[in-house]
């Protein structure tokens, strides 16, 4: 992406002596044990700037565990996470968010009684007059930025003054996703964003994902929907029993192939030695 190129001499170079600057996220030997349960074992994963990667796998394969380690929801057992050229250890999801990782959770983190722009700017309101906790809100600027963000992501919402509680599941999901676009997050993670949505609403969320792609914003998408994955992403990483068993370019694979990796019928040669079976 052109963005990454222009960043090269400036902020990326000093931190990148042992690390290629076009990599936004890398995990090395990322492992999580819950007592005796090895939920995630030695995950080595790379995500380049502007790249959209899907994570697939059966229930309990370690997909959500993997994401929870990255976003700081849980603390890893061992391994390294390098985000934007720096090793990171987030104490909580809030720290991850401040660092630029926006997560769209299955259960939406929206305040139902507030409207769209209130939710987009919750916790980082635009201020017209600073007065500690009683700082005056700049509604006009927030509405303007909201409309801009909705336009950029292609989200259509009938009336941004409506409260979230009056919106459909798809509209809510769109608001949650639009939030990531408002703040130019460095990495967006979506955990089954369309699992609970109807056909038309799913189409809308997928449109937003395409818009993020066009804008060069990197994305990790957890999904069970094969058609969606094949439509949207550049690369598919398959998890099975807590291990990565395949790393497939979208153009070089097909649905049947991916299913074979998910079910355990196939394992890529480079992952066999690591004991995935």
């Amino acid at each position: 992406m052109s963005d990454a190129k222009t960043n090269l001499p400036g902020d990326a170079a000093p931190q990148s002596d042992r690390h290629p600057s076009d990599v936004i996220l890398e995990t090395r030997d990322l492992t999580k044990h819950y007592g005796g349960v090895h939920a995630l074992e030695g995950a080595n994963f790379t995500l380049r700037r502007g790249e959209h990667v899907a994570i697939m796998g059966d229930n309990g394969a370690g997909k959500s565990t993997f994401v929870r380690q990255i976003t700081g929801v849980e603390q890893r057992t061992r391994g390294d996470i390098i985000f934007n050229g720096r090793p990171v250890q987030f104490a909580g999801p809030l720290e991850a968010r401040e660092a630029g990782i926006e997560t769209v959770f299955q259960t939406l983190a929206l305040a139902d009684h507030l409207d769209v722009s209130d939710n987009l700017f919750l916790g980082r309101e635009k201020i017209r007059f600073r007065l500690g906790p009683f700082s005056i809100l700049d509604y006009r600027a927030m509405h303007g930025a909201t409309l801009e963000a909705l336009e950029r992501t292609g989200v259509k919402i009938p009336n941004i003054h409506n409260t979230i509680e009056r919106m459909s599941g798809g509209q809510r999901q769109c608001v949650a996703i639009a939030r990531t676009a408002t703040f130019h997050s460095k990495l967006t993670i979506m955990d089954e964003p369309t699992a609970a949505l109807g056909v038309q609403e799913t189409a809308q969320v997928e449109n937003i994902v395409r818009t993020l792609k066009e804008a060069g914003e990197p994305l990790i998408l957890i999904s069970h929907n094969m058609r969606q994955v094949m439509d949207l992403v550049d690369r598919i990483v398959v998890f099975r029993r807590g291990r990565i068993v395949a790393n497939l370019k979208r153009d070089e694979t097909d649905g049947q192939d991916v299913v074979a990796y998910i079910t355990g019928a196939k394992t890529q040669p480079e992952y066999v030695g690591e004991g995935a079976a």
Partner: protein
Amino acid sequence: MANTAHGIGGLKYDPRKRTKPPELNVLLALVLIIVTFEVLGWLLYRDSFLFNTRDNVDAIFNWARLNIIILQVSIIGIIAIGVTQVIISGGIDLSSGSIVGATAMIVMSFAQTELVNGNPNPKAVFGAWAMDLPVIVPILVGLACGLVAGCINGLLIAYTRIPPFIATLGMMVSARGLSKWWTNGQPVSFPTEGFAALGKGMMPVVYFIALAILFHLILRQTVYGKHTYATGSNEDAARMSGINVARHKVLIYTLAGMLASIAAIVLSSKNLTAQAGMGGMYELDAIAMSVIGGVSLAGGRGSIIGTVLGALIFGVIISGFTFLKLDAYYQEMVKGAIIVGAVVLDQWRQRRTAAGM
């Protein structure tokens, strides 16, 4: 059906789904209640509730009655402004009535005058050093009382994670104990003229309206207000968004305590005396005003305008019952029924919204 950037789907614009201000319903209820009293008045006594019927007074409305309606709810209304914010944030405050009692006792002790009709003040709490102090002293002492009590409430709720119901119940009992202990149950009386002027005549109404406007603006226009609604609406989302929810709760309960202490200052000044039992059951009336005004006990919903309308409904009902020459006991029974009715209505409204209607 509109098309999105990628030409698929889109969402219908449905004007019926536009959010209508819920205060309209409360206003409608207020009007209906007034009309009911008006009709009953004509049927039973050939008299008007709202309009002037005396020939020797040149006015359209019965101003004396209207003044009483708002005067008798203003002091509890001041408390309700704080309680409204607490409930919007998803909490509850049972301690406000007792904070009124304790603050009134302490405030009055610093507002006494040395000589009553040439004799030493018979109710003097402190020595001569606390007599005839400038009026700012009891005001500051009172605000400090509310600040401390509210802050303790907030700290308990935010940092020990005990339910607001329990924390403020504890404060309710303790503050009432404090107000009795302060003078061993004796009333404190004979304030200075300056202090007595604070709550004279229609002054309580002036404070009520001014504070209502101030806090309406604060809730609508400031970060504090936005975070109060967010906390009550979805506390986890608020926390995930970077709001320091614990610190915010301390601030909300502190403000509620201070509003209760303002009510105490006005009330003791108006009554020219403070008694240990002052403000009893005010907390429930304040909660009732908020709930009648459309503040949801589940949090996230409500407004100061609604609470002011709720307070007016309260006042109209009390005046209306007096006007119809009904016993005061009926007032309380009906008041109770109205509170329950308002909560039922709120629950029903929530289910309707949840069902996407």
